[in-house]
């Protein structure tokens, strides 16, 4: 089986769209949790092919976007230490903190490097024994296992100059927080695909059970998403919310046990600071005490010269929760553009504002 083309077949896609357009009668508002889904929905042009009474809202599933300014300020402070090399995934470098982005600090002489995997950061630590290498761990359950693996490898190899600044977040608690806040009246959720491949689809059972909302776990091809929307429409029309999975080729009910095990070995669950939402209990991952030697927060004194502040006017925090859309932001596409981003939602390739900017323009 071809794992991509099979799920992009345009004829099957049109058939699903016909079904959705016939079947859907009730106004519905669906949130795609994941930024990857937002981008895919725009790229395939799915929004404009759905019935006008179905609204698609973007959710908090963009790791760069949900990183709080306060946490970014700490990373910037660390990057100014002369003995430190900061390693991070690319997108984070361009996100403005209270005052500067990592790219700007790098231009002033800080040693900030883009890596594609934690193993690259370990290699940099090995090659620079006189330096202290700090990997800025952002992301959800998808990237956390690789960071856990790097910490274990550093311990096994006796590396004493490798640290992790763990800003990892776990996704079910933020989903609950958004549903509990009730600021957005949702009819159904498109649950994340890659995250679910680690957590397992069972992680989302609370959505139909506790909130009586439709939900389905989706992959990222056009048919994955259309099948999910069809399932959500069926659930809404029949008033039978349940957990559906259209991405069973990657997602098992119980998840990836090896990945979950290594996360459990290295991380404790702790509170985390979410942009726009604030500190949520039990929604982050921090290093266990036995790995304290690798914990950047425990080994460096992080001094902030001034208190953190959000950029005035930036609606990223609201957009992440689905309470506002980029089009309601006064900065969007005028002051805030991909070349000159004000907020993280415009920086990240998975950010909602970037997706609206690139794909959302009106055509005659």
């Amino acid at each position: 089986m071809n794992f991509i083309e099979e799920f992009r077949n345009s004829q099957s896609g049109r058939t699903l769209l016909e079904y959705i357009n016939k079947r859907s009668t009730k106004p519905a508002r669906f949130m795609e949790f994941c930024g990857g889904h937002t981008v895919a929905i725009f790229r395939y042009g799915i929004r404009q092919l759905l019935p006008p009474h179905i609204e698609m809202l973007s959710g908090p599933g963009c790791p760069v976007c949900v990183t709080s300014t306060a946490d970014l300020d700490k990373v910037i402070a660390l990057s100014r230490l002369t003995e430190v090399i900061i390693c991070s995934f690319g997108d984070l470098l361009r996100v403005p903190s209270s005052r500067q982005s990592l790219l700007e600090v790098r231009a002033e002489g800080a040693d900030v490097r883009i890596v594609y995997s934690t193993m690259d950061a370990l290699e940099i630590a090995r090659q620079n024994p006189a330096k202290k290498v700090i990997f800025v761990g952002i992301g959800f359950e998808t990237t956390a296992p690789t960071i856990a693996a790097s910490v274990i490898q550093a311990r096994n190899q006796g590396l004493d100059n490798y640290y992790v600044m763990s800003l990892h977040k776990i996704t079910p608690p933020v989903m609950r927080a958004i549903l509990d806040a009730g600021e957005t009246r949702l009819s159904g959720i498109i649950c994340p695909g890659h995250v679910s491949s680690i957590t397992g689809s069972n992680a989302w059972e609370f959505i139909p059970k506790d909130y009586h909302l439709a939900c389905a776990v989706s992959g990222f091809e056009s048919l994955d998403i259309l099948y999910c929307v069809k399932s959500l429409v069926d659930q809404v029309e029949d008033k039978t919310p349940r957990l559906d999975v259209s991405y069973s080729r990657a997602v098992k009910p119980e998840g990836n046990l090896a990945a979950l095990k290594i996360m459990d070995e290295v991380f404790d669950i702790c509170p985390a600071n979410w942009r726009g939402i604030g500190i949520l209990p039990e929604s982050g991952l921090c290093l266990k005490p036995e790995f304290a030697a690798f914990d950047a927060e425990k080994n460096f004194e992080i001094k902030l010269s001034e208190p953190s502040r959000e950029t005035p006017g930036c609606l990223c925090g609201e957009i992440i929760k689905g309470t506002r859309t980029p089009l309601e932001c006064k900065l969007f596409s005028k002051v805030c553009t991909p070349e000159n981003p004000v907020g993280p939602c415009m920086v990240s390739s998975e950010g909602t504002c970037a997706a609206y900017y690139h794909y959302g323009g009106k055509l005659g």
Partner: protein
Amino acid sequence: MDKTKILLAHGSGGRLTHDLISKYLVQSLSNPLLNKLDDAAVFKTGGNMAFTTDSYVVSPIFFPGGNIGKLAVCGTVNDLSVMGAVPKYLSLSFIIEEGLDITVLEKIIQSIAAAAKEAGVEIVTGDTKVVNIGKADKIFINTAGVGFIPEELDISGSNAQPGDAVIVSGTMGDHGIAIMAQREGLNFKIAVESDCAPLNGLIADMLKACPRIHVMRDPTRGGLATTLNEIAAQSQVGIELDEESIPVKPAVGGACDALGLDPLYVANEGKLIAILPEEFAPKVLSAMKAHPYGVDSAVIGRVTAKNPSRVSIRTPLGALRILDMQSGELLPRIC
């Protein structure tokens, strides 16, 4: 004793520079204008002349399907050719990092000689500088070129007309993906080679089939999407593409999926876009398909009066969405 590494002295203008030029450059690239070794090449001109320059800083300097030397010739030849010019003379300047293996330089020069021969151009003047370790990354190359444009041609990015057909000469994104697959840190192996090639032969065949080609461009950095946006803005027209008709190799599509890239934004170094009156499209397309560098050519869209300065794309599901310019991506140096 023969040196094995490039030294600062190789760029100082003294004996080592002289040896380098005579032993490696003049021997491989020999032609009457170069061989004179005067301060400038002198030649006769007449009619419309095209003149262009480009610097090449690709990393890694050797990649599947080519190297920085071949790229430096093909890139400049293609920039001249897409204007309808017959490329004739190139300059060649090296900025070399001290310590480069001379055998590496030799290989690069051989590639330059081979590419120049294929394209039918002569390297008639040049320069070599050597900088301290760390001041350059192995080798940077600049080439400039001149070519001559037949009177009857009028090809420019501002000539696209509503109703014109948009044609590409083959699969999109091969060069960029071949480079990225080679990069340190990206440990995936795929069987994709750079498409780096001189396109003047293909273009000559196209112009024989239809001298009234309105626009030709090579979609290098920024890929097809960015180049078409530039043309749409220059010509004040809309361009509407059909996503399913754009040729992309399955391996390139797969690698792009894995890296979160869109092949329509990935660089090409041996492909061109042609925009021409629709009635000539079948004839030009068959001429292109008959050339080795155009076998995968396809009509991918049309020029519209609607949505001026905008490029849009019809998705396989039937939606029409904007295809924006590339902006602010963190990509490796690819050309």
